[in-house]
């Protein structure tokens, strides 16, 4: 399952979406999320689908990649769908024992599923098209105003980017340790919940130790390369808005407007 986490992986191709300023993409993702939650009725969702599909198409990231990110949240997805199906009041379609399925419940569940799926797809599209470094740059600049209230924006951004770099490394490491313990007869798959939780100790202890060792090493390597916080730092890629960002903001505004309009009309 660990391998299914695609969030935070960059897909390196050249596309107009890749070239956008990270702040634009962050804003775009935010607008898309807002649009999903104001959406009501099929026309809105249809528009969202068209918008998302167009973005994916332009980004040249294979659709299979974006779908793969869903595997990690499949339980959350099922959970919320089931809740919505059974716990929404309305016109009863089927009734058995203490459960009932309503028409509204089905519709509600369907919309909820679409929202969640699009939410994941939208945000994975952002991470697939934005290198973690520029993503954190975007956050750092985009949230720069928070520095005034003593929020360590640079440090948070740096922590995020390091976390993103080490996710695949630690994932691989976890896989390796798991196999090594299995070679010593460890069993991660069977037994009661408590037994299974206990069986994770031989995996988690070495994994944490490894993470600490890497952290110490990395801190030293960063110091050796003169890292001393955000003060006096320059950027290899200073963020600059270009014409295409203006165009993207226009499209975003138009899209959000259209979604609200559709919601009001239908």
């Amino acid at each position, binding site marked *: 399952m660990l391998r299914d986490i695609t969030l935070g992986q*960059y897909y*390196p191709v050249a596309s107009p979406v890749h070239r956008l300023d990270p702040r634009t993409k962050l804003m775009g993702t935010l607008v898309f999320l807002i649009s999903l939650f104001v959406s009501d009725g099929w026309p809105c969702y249809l528009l969202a689908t068209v918008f998302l599909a167009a973005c994916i198409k332009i980004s040249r990231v*294979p659709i*299979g990649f974006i779908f793969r990110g869903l595997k990690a949240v499949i339980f959350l997805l099922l959970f919320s769908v089931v809740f919505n199906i059974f716990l929404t009041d309305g016109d009863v379609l089927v009734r058995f024992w203490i459960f009932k399925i309503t028409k509204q419940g089905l519709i509600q569940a369907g919309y909820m599923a679409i929202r969640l799926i699009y939410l994941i797809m939208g945000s994975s599209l952002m991470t697939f098209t934005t*290198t*973690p*470094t520029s993503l954190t740059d975007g956050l750092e600049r985009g949230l720069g105003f928070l520095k005034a209230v003593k929020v360590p924006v640079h440090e948070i951004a740096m922590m995020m*980017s*390091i976390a*993103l*770099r080490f996710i*695949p*490394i630690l994932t691989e*490491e976890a896989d*390796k*340790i798991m*196999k*090594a*313990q*299995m*070679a*010593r*007869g*460890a*069993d991660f798959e069977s037994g009661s919940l408590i037994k299974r939780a206990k069986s994770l*100790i*031989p995996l988690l*202890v*070495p994994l944490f*130790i*490894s993470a600490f*060792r*890497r952290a110490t*090493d*990395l801190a*030293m*390597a*960063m*110091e*050796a*390369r*003169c*890292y*001393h916080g955000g003060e*006096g*730092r*320059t*950027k*290899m*890629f*200073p963020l600059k808005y270009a014409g295409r960002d203006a165009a993207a903001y226009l499209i975003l505004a138009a899209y959000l407007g259209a979604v609200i309009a559709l919601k009001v009309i239908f």
Partner: protein
Amino acid sequence: MGIIKTDRLVFEYTRRDEENQIEEVMRAIDGVSLDIKEGQFVAILGRNGSGKSTLAKHMNALLFPTDGVIWVGEKDTRKEENLWDIRQTAGMVFQNPDNQIIATVVEEDVGFGPENMGVPSAEIWKRVQESLEAVGMTAYRKASPNHLSGGQKQRVAIAGVMAMRPRCIVLDEPTAMLDPNGRKEVIRTIRELNRAEGITVILITHYMEETVSADRIFVMDGGEIQMEGTPREIFSRVKELKALHLDVPQVTELGALLASGGLPVASGILTVKELVEELEKARESGARVSYTGASGDKRAEAVSLDKEPVLELREVTYKYGTGTPMEVKVLKGISFAVPKGQFLSIIGHTGSGKSTLIQHLNGLLKADSGDVLFHGESIYRDGYDKKALRGKVGLVFQYPEHQLFEEDVFTDVCFGPKNQGLSKEQAEERAKEALRLVGMDSSFYRRSPFELSGGQKRRAAIAGVLAMEPEVLILDEPTAGLDPGGRDEILDQVEKLHEEKGMAVVLVSHSMEDVARYAERLIVLDRGTIAYDGAPKEVFRHYRDLETMGLSAPQVTYLAEELRKIGFSLGGDITTVEEAKSAILREFAGAEGEEDAGTAGD
């Protein structure tokens, strides 16, 4: 004053217990004075724990002396205002390639140093470009570091340091975690930087062959400098080096052995070419020795396959990423059997499928097609007890110490037997025996695995697998990252297990010298197929083919080849130093010797 100078440098690590009381003071550096001239290529050699890495960290002001002084670029590191200057003067490259790359794209990582220094963007770009060119990584500038090989990652790390425009690069065991090709790649790169750009290089390592072209070598042990001199001066002291857990290249060792056998060979031989010249001179001068020793040729010429197989692979294929555009066929129809009690070695270039292959042997990976048989029974049969199989086919992964997790060594070693369902007493019995086999007595039982030395940790981890009493022991690069002394210790122990317990051993290795010395049989894996399968002597005859697969033969095999070119007969295949020594001495021993050589060569 040179670019780096130390005066009676002392550094102490202080260990404190929970109440912050001083528990132990360890002196890692003990009065080191040295002076390194700008533009030199300096090597600092020493076993693990000799203090060499601690010394390196002083050169970058990552550690500060307890006593004594160190000047970097004529600046005292103890003065805080010098800190950033010093770190720009002496850049540092570390051992683990993964743990020093900060960014997720190569060029961004190279730019990290200049960014921190506040260099303007346009200038950063220029520097990134130049640094990547200098290490030959321009083609990968947009790549993700996760997709690079170890050698490439280290070159990126070097470029990252170069972009800070240092006068000196300190490399702290940059090749310890790399395969032989990665190692060559990195050494070539730093030599080139030293030669073309005039950068001072300080290379810290325990691989002697990397220091052959150094201007000056310092050998450290116990926190002190034990030897100092040119490579030739240092390499002529073979015995002393071995006592310090170090190793010399095969030709150097052979040269010393031949000299003590009576041949006029100069001491401190550094290359195959030099030894060939020495021997040619000796022959022309009509040198003679008396040599009646055995042929030194203990190893079989061919593999005997008449023993019943314990493990057998039949046409095993395996793909990674099935159904994705990145699908790779890793194994393409592998068939071989491991007979009872055989010492088998698998060699292959990184990416040839070795690690994938061995995970099939105990059922951790399941073949896409083909079959794996244990004592004639398919392990893919429904209801086959995989857990029992893993007890019988013990697999020791690379860096096995990373899987230690218990509070003390003894409990950790008991983990395997307990999983097998043994009682506490039986498990403890097994653990005791396993620890004895790896040479760890009861004083180690209650120690935390995390306070052991690198070699001890590894032995404890191997004991964890041995405690399950496997019939087949598979080891994936068991010597990776160890110093030569630690390497010999582990391999000798494995050999002992093989002989005493009759255990079949499958050793995956990158070192041709090691496999030639220990293995009865070699399997060469190349891009997912078996290229050769036979006795080491048979296989190394094809050394030219091996080279096209990114492998090589032991250094003495090349020496023998060169000697034959100038008319030496040298009976038999030569794959170890012992064999080379006796073949050459017999050649110089005259008539009776020649006859001997003739029969041995048949």
